[in-house]
């Protein structure tokens, strides 16, 4: 139940008379609702980490790419770039 998974924000709506910012988030095609109250700056297109219906963090793209950066330099990742899932 501690699972938190990254998904991409598809659209944003407001609940409770505009006080609660909600998003439709796509997890590899499966769409679920999540509150954006903890990550108010998140916008459509951003990746957020969602846990039990609440987005708890924005995924930092630059940082996400770092680990691959250093491995790529080592020439290890050539095959990977042919596969887009």
């Amino acid at each position: 139940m501690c699972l938190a998974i990254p998904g991409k924000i598809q659209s944003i709506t407001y609940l409770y008379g505009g006080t609660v910012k909600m998003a439709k988030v796509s997890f590899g095609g499966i769409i679920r609702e999540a509150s954006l109250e903890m990550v108010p700056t998140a916008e459509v297109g951003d990746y957020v980490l969602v846990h039990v219906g609440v987005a708890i963090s924005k995924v930092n793209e630059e940082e996400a790419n770092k680990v691959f950066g250093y491995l790529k330099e080592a020439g290890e990742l050539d095959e990977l770039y042919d596969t887009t899932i």
Partner: protein
Amino acid sequence: MKYISEFRSPEIVNTLLGEIKKILKGSWNIMEVCGGQTHSLVKNGLLNMLPANIQMIHGPGCPVCVTPVSLIDKAVHLAMEHDVILCSFGDMIRVPGSGMSLLEAKSKGGDVRILYSPLEAVKIARENPGREVVFFAVGFETTAPANALSVVHAYREGVKNYSILTSHVLVPPAMEAIMSDEDCRVDAFLAAGHVCAIMGIGEYYPLVEKYKIPIVVTGFEPVDLLEGILMTVRQLEAGTYKLENQYTRVVETEGNKNAIAVVDQIFEITNREWRGIGNIPFSGYAVKSAYSDFDANKKFDINIAEAHEDTTCLAGDVMKGKIKPDQCPNFGKKCTPTRPLGAPMVSSEGACAAYYHFNLAGSVHQ
């Protein structure tokens, strides 16, 4: 999909394993604190790929596993005797209480509902103004903002028939309890990335200093876990002890300020009983008195006898890293996921269930 597939790539996994093997000289016990990490290590077969000199010890980081029996009994009591709509996460409802689980309560007519999010419970309360709705709010720091937020929503919307039964636990005090145990065999920790996404990493500096132990904040994908292990092994081999952050794409040093604010608004720190481990001082959250109208413990008069643990369940030893799950004599015999004796056999994040499932799959041999 970006940010997921790359972190599961077999090529990168192999590169990282190669690195680990290259620098490894000693023999190390590394504890992953979080049950989500245990699950990922087991599911992805990583335990089997790691060199034998690295032993992963599976920590107490499964909130379902450490929720005391007495609290499950309380939840069952609320469902059966107080006619409440009792909501919780799926894992929680199968955990055996001293009498029955919530699942059994449901089959006996209790209104028990499995929800994905505590925010849904507030909606149910709005839609059922004539009934009391209780959310069984378990979890670590990761889940605390969502549970706190449900109270904030109910408070703001004037939903008076909603309350939470809390059993919130905190990770750093549990790590401290493990380290201060004389029999402790842990050489380094992988700290739980999602807990740190909320709370930041500052709480771990005192532990690093006091116990001179490397702590690496780590994510949950195979590449995260192996990179975290590589970072701890580098430190262990160099004889250093530092706090490092592997999970920088998600964890910021100071955590999530909005989440910390909502947690502070609703909760205060309290002593907490951990199933299988015992009382740990200042290791949990309770609802602040200003919000006691939303605290099921205060709202309902729950008078039930203190429950006894099944004494043959060795969950405490498993969670302290003293034995591996399959060294418990009940494992796979008297205790299976369909008939669990203890909580670690229930939740998919519990070490016993993880071992059971992966042994059945035949992919790993202990």
